[in-house]
């Protein structure tokens, strides 16, 4: 059973056709990188998977659960999908640790000490346990993004969605976040990752997808994607980005 399967998905923002008849699926344990020019619908696509956006037509099934407008369906899907945002979206009034424990105590019924223990485990995993009591504003961008990854991992998701996780970072902090993501990949996590870090894509992706104007233009293994892309638009995009 695929972890995500989308069929004939359409999405409009008013008159703007953001996703055009998209078919897309990801197997358990598979790692997919999505790239494409800004405005091509990459964020929209992954936000449809956990119901941050609702598609207007087509079907989306995540981990065997059909995504509908019903809040139970959305909640079930969100409970197995973790998400990491470009702008981190940490809660600024809470410490790194509290960012991680909030959902555990409030929604999963863990006691504070159980939640703390679990959160520390994941904060160690992203190598930031020593900063656990700091507020986001006291951390660097790279550290904040790692906390955001730990926060998502605490809920033990089956699938992680990354929306340009390194685009808001200073260059010297990109690698620490990518390393964390590589280590997740090594553990066999299913991942869908919007990124233009093509080195990372080549290293960890099973498939690379090129999106343009709301459609999947290219869907290939990394070697094929870089060496003999089928679509002229992919070639053009690669030539720009690999300059």
């Amino acid at each position, binding site marked *: 059973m695929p972890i995500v399967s989308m069929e004939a998905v359409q999405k409009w923002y008013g008159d703007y056709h953001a996703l055009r008849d998209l078919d897309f699926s990801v197997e358990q344990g598979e790692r997919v990188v999505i790239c494409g020019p800004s405005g091509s619908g990459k964020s929209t696509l992954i936000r449809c998977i*956990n*119901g*941050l956006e609702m598609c207007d037509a087509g079907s989306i099934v995540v981990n065997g659960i059909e995504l509908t407008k019903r809040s139970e369906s959305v909640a079930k899907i969100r409970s197995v999908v973790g998400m990491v945002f470009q702008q981190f979206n940490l809660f600024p009034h809470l410490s790194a640790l509290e960012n991680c424990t*909030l959902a555990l105590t409030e*929604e999963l019924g863990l006691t504070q000490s159980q939640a703390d223990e679990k959160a520390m485990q994941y904060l160690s995993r992203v190598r930031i346990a020593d900063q656990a009591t700091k507020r986001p504003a006291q951390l660097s961008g790279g550290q904040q993004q790692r906390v955001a990854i730990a926060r*998502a991992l605490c809920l033990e998701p089956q699938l992680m969605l990354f929306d340009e996780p390194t685009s808001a970072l200073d260059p010297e902090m990109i690698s620490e976040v990518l390393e964390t993501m590589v280590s997740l990949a090594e553990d066999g996590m299913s991942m869908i990752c919007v990124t233009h870090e093509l080195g990372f894509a080549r290293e960890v992706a099973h498939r690379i997808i090129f999106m343009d104007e709301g459609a999947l233009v290219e869907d290939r293994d990394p070697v094929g994607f870089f060496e003999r892309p089928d679509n002229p638009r992919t070639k053009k995009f690669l030539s720009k980005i690999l300059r």
Partner: protein
Amino acid sequence: MKEVLIDLIGAPLGTIIFQLVFAAQFTVYLSLIAFIGGGIAAIFITLARIAPYRPIRSAATGYIWLFQSTPLLMLLFLCGLGFPHLFQFQISPWTAASVALTIFTSAYLAEVWRGAIGAVETGQWEAGDALNLRYVVMLRRIIIPQAIKFGLAPTIGFLVQIIKGTSLAYIIGFQDLMLVGKRWANAPVDGSEPFIIFPIMAVLYFCLCYPLALFARQLEQKALARGQ
């Protein structure tokens, strides 16, 4: 207290000042009632205003719109004179003024607080959604703690508007600083001419409002400093 004042500054003025200060307490009480009552009502209206159901949101928006565009004076007339006359019931100036000011305050504060909640980045809601937090948990643990820092200064600042607003309640016979002052100013007593009474009243209103205005400014500057 009264005797001390009269000994100090003579009969008419001592009595006047004593009565004005005494009346000022009712200004304070009415302000507190309006602020607390209006604040509690505003909590519910704000929650309705951001509820995930459109009809509830529309009702709250309508309430805010209606009472924000009604002059306070008209609310006072309606509560103190209009409705009692129309429906043939008795209402004390206290009750009428409390109701009118509470409604007025609730509409204003609900709008301020909605704005404060709107100032919290949408990414915070999205992060909460992605973590599968329930709506109430999201509000209580994430949105409201952040909205407070945007809403606190304008809320305290509005208290000043309420205190000044209570001065209109004299129009329906509410015995406050304003009514007592006006009565003295109109009284044919030497030393109670309007040019003496009104400055004294202004000083009293100033003493009530200025500390609050100052406090609001401090909060604002603190919030600004934190934002940088």
